[in-house]
Every structure is written in C-alpha cells, then in structure tokens.
C-alpha cells in the first residue's frame, strides 16, 4: 500500500479506468446519470461471492484517515475498488430542526458548529441570508471586516486540509508546518472576538466588534509572514516524487461528471470549470477586489492540490487589498431589536472554502425561522467519492477522501 513500492508505479488499473471515464463522458445534456449510482446491495447475497475474490470491508467510522466519523463500505477485488457506499449521519445533530425552534439571532452561533474548520464562512452565509430576508445591508466597513476574516479563515481551512491530507498520504512534516502557521490566524481571531474555532464573529446586520487596536498591523504582519511559508509547503510537496505518484491521475473526475454530481469549490475548479461564487455572484465586498480564480486541467488529486495552493495566495491578495482600503464608519446597520422578517423565502449562497454553502430560509413573519435548509458543500462533494475511486486502489481511497476536503460536522449537520 505504501507509495514507493515497485508494484505501485504503473498503476494499470487507475489508468485504464481513467481512459474509460474520459471516453464515456458525453456532454451533461445527454449524460446518463444512472452510471453514477452506487449501492452495493449488501442485503442481497451475491451468488458469485464464494467463487470470486470479492471482499467487502468497512473503512471507518473510527478510521483516522476518514477525517471524522465517515464510514465507507468498500467492495474490493484484491486491492482494486469495485464500488463504495458511504454511511453517514454519525454526527447528525438536527441543526435544521434546532433552527426552527430558535430565533434568528439565537441560531447564529449554531452555524459555526457545522463546518467547524471554517466557522467564519458559515456565519457569513447565514448572516447575509437573513439580512437579505430583512432587506437590510451591512455597512461597508463591516463588509470589509467580513472579507478579511473570511479569507483568513479560508487560508486556515486550506492549511488544515493540506496538513491532514499530506499526513494521510504519508508526509508528516507539512502537518507541523501548516499547524504552526495556522496558529497565527487563530491568534488574530482570538484577539478579535475571543474565540479561536467557533468564532461567531458576525451578527445579523454587521459585526459585533470593532477591530481591536493594532488589527491592521497584525494582519499585515501575517501577510508578510505567510507567503514564504506557502513556498515552503510547496517545496516539500509540489515536485516530490512520492507526492506526485500518490496524487497524479488519482481520483480523476471529469468536468461533465463534476457538474452532474453538483460538486463545487476547488474540486470543481480543478476539473476545469472556472466558477467561483465570489466572482459569479459577488457578495459582501468581493466585487471591490482583484483576484484570480485558479483552475486545473485534469481533475485529479494533484490539480486539486495546486488549485488550493494558488487559492491561498489569492486569498492573501484579497486580504491585503481589503486591509489597505478598509473604510471608516459604522459596523452595524440599523437592525430591529426583535427580528421579524416579512413572510417569504430566500436562498443565499457563498463560496465557502469547500464549495457552495447555501442557506434556504423560509420566514412566516414570526421571530423564528419557519425552515432553514443548509446546502452543505461537503455533503454534496462526498457523493462524488464513488465515481472518483472506482477502479482505483485502496490507498487511493484515502487520498481521495483527503482531497475532497470534507468536514463531517457539515456532512451530517
């Protein structure tokens, strides 16, 4: 299973499978999506089971490489994966049900607990959705603070992804590097709002806290500190032979498949779709800043790696522009003490580090939302796991789970 073994080198299975996938990929209009379906029919005894080498094994829910409590049932022929089925829900807390029994303001901290690695993004999406429903807009200064913190959080999320993903594949050093540097971001969060992980940084209508004394200085210091560190990660991995062997042509997903499966975020972009909600439907203050959307060509694990690395640099670009141009003024819009949005519904989505994070909120005119639906990027992206690993090796499953960058708190809600 190790990376450097001689038998691993040619990867005949993966390559064949990839060629097949490409040949079978018509445009999405005519795509027959039934070929994506995977259910192993575990309750029906397989007649050929005894004669074949097929084996069904469980990976997780306590397996460390599944990034939480994900259970994957693998159907194997030797080392080759014939099919997978994900069993999720171990972390289900009924967030959407809780929302219906809380006021709009009271539900705000709960959203941090979904994607706890990028709590700030969750809060931003929720606050903006409710603001839309209330027909109010956060003041410009609040929007800039939101952008700075959200982009810092994107960086922290990508760093955590890189560290754990590399660790899964067998490279231990990046974990220490990324956690060392992520600490600086968490320190800024802690100084700003007192919390490091579940920050609850924003309020409906703006931000609760004004930036602390020296906030800009801290952020700029961080902006100067981190680019050489990102180069350092890249030095460790980008041209590392083992890394290339483990990631190139592994977990390939074509452009058409990615769209059909509703995959978003870096995974979609690595498959060559230049689509980022920050550009496509700008929210907060994103239309004010220059930045690029990095895309990949092959849709493999390596491309997803390069896309995310470039995204980190682009985030730094955005933060620098935001810090330099941050306007003066109030940080809270005029918000009624008791929030009663008019009857109606709204869908608002943002580009979270993992992809499109959407909130569909239905209001019945009372102080509590009638229904809150969260469209979690990790949940939808995880569905692509089967297409990406079928025909690959067991070790590739680990690489693909890592590269999808899922957070089970968000998958299960």
């Amino acid at each position: 299973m190790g990376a450097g073994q001689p038998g691993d080198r040619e990867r005949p299975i993966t390559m064949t499978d990839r060629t097949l996938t490409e040949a079978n990929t018509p445009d999405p209009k005519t795509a027959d999506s039934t070929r994506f379906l995977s259910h192993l029919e575990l309750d029906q005894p397989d007649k050929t089971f005894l004669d074949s080498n097929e084996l069904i094994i469980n990976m997780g829910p306590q397996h460390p490489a599944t990034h939480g409590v994900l259970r994957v049932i693998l159907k194997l022929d030797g080392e080759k994966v014939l099919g997978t089925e994900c069993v999720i829900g171990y972390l289900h807390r009924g967030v959407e049900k809780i929302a219906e029994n809380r006021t709009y303001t009271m539900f705000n901290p709960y959203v941090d607990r979904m994607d706890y690695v990028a709590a700030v993004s969750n809060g931003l999406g929720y606050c903006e959705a409710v603001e839309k429903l209330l027909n109010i807009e956060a003041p410009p200064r609040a929007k800039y603070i939101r952008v700075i913190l959200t982009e810092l959080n994107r960086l922290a999320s990508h760093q955590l992804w890189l560290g754990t993903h590399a660790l899964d594949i067998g490279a231990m050093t990046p974990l220490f590097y990324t956690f060392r540097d992520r600490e600086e971001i968490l320190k800024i969060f802690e100084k700003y709002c007192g919390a490091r992980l579940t920050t609850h940084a924003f309020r409906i209508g703006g931000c609760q806290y004004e930036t602390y004394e020296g906030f800009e200085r801290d952020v700029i210091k961080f902006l100067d500190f981190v680019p050489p560190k990102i180069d350092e990660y890249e030095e460790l991995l980008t041209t590392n032979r083992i890394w290339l062997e483990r990631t190139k042509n592994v977990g390939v997903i074509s452009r058409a498949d990615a769209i059909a499966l509703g995959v978003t975020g870096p995974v979609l972009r690595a498959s060559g779709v230049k689509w980022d909600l920050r550009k496509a439907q700008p929210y907060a203050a994103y239309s004010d800043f220059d930045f690029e959307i990095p895309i990949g060509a092959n849709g493999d694990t390596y491309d997803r790696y390069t896309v995310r690395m470039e995204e980190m640099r682009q985030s730094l670009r955005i933060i620098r522009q935001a810090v330099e141009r941050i306007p003066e003024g109030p940080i809270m819009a005029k918000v009624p003490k008791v929030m009663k949005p008019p009857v109606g519904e709204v869908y608002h989505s943002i580009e979270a580090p993992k992809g499109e994070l959407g909130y569909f909120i239905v209001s019945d005119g009372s102080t509590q939302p009638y229904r809150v639906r969260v469209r979690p990027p990790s949940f939808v992206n995880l569905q692509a796991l089967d297409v990406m690993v079928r025909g690959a090796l067991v070790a590739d499953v680990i690489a693909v789970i890592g590269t999808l960058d899922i957070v089970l708190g968000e998958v299960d809600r």
Partner: protein
Amino acid sequence: MVAELKGQYGSGIREANSYLGQNYMIVDPSIVSELLQILRDREQFDYCVDVTAVHYPEREKQFDVVWILYSFPRNERIRVKTMIADGDSVPSAVSMWATANWLEREVFDMFGIRFDGHPDLKRILLPDGWKGYPLRKDYGIIQQDQEWVQANLGIESGQ
C-alpha cells in the same frame, strides 16, 4: 423563458415570480418531471444546487418540495416549487442530475416524501430502522425513537 413555458403548460405553472431578486416558479406536481427536463436541456440549468422540502401541517397539501437550480452559462438561479399532500410522491430527478441522489434521500429521511424512480431511496442521516420524520412540524424537538435507541444503543434514553 417564463412566457414560453407558460404558453406550453398554461395553468400548470401557477405562479412565476421573483422575490428579493430571486426567481421562482410554483408548478403542478404533474408537470414537474417534464419541466425540470426542459429546464436542464433547453434552458441550460445544468447544475442542481439543492432539493429540499418545507412542511405546512395546516394545509391540505402539506408539503412544498423545492428544487434549486443554477445555470453555469447563464449565471442564473431558479427555484421550482410544487405542493403535494402527505403520502403523495414526486418524480425523482436522479436521471437528470446525479447529485439529486443524496439530496432526495435526505428529503425522504427528514420528511418521508417518496421520490418515484429513485434508484435507492433509503434513509441517509438517520439509521435505517428509525421511526418518524424529524423535520415534520409535528415531530417534537427532543422527540426520539426510544425503541430504536433502547434496542440498538443499550441505553434507556438518548436524552
């Protein structure tokens, strides 16, 4: 686009409007399947963002089923909504967008709405043997399937 669709389906499209700058359509359950197909093929809504539902227990047709679609070429979103009674089913969109698979399973899990033609409709977040549909309004917030908890977890209560 709306005018064209209205011409085609007449009263099948009950309402096509926009609220807070977001377009939505309320349609008859009978034309949902055809309409989604047209939206995907002719109107280029190639990405199914979400499938979800809302429960209104006091209504005769208790459930709203909502499809949120997005078009990459047009950079546009649309919501398609239909109303169904408890026990009715809606056509599955899995053959159009593969992503609908898990999304529909979640709606089934949480609301008990069946999707016709779904290849593997079973619970996704809750365990298979669970009784009740938590996101229905008549399901209490601390309610649990005690029988399941006692049988499977070996504890008196999960609370």
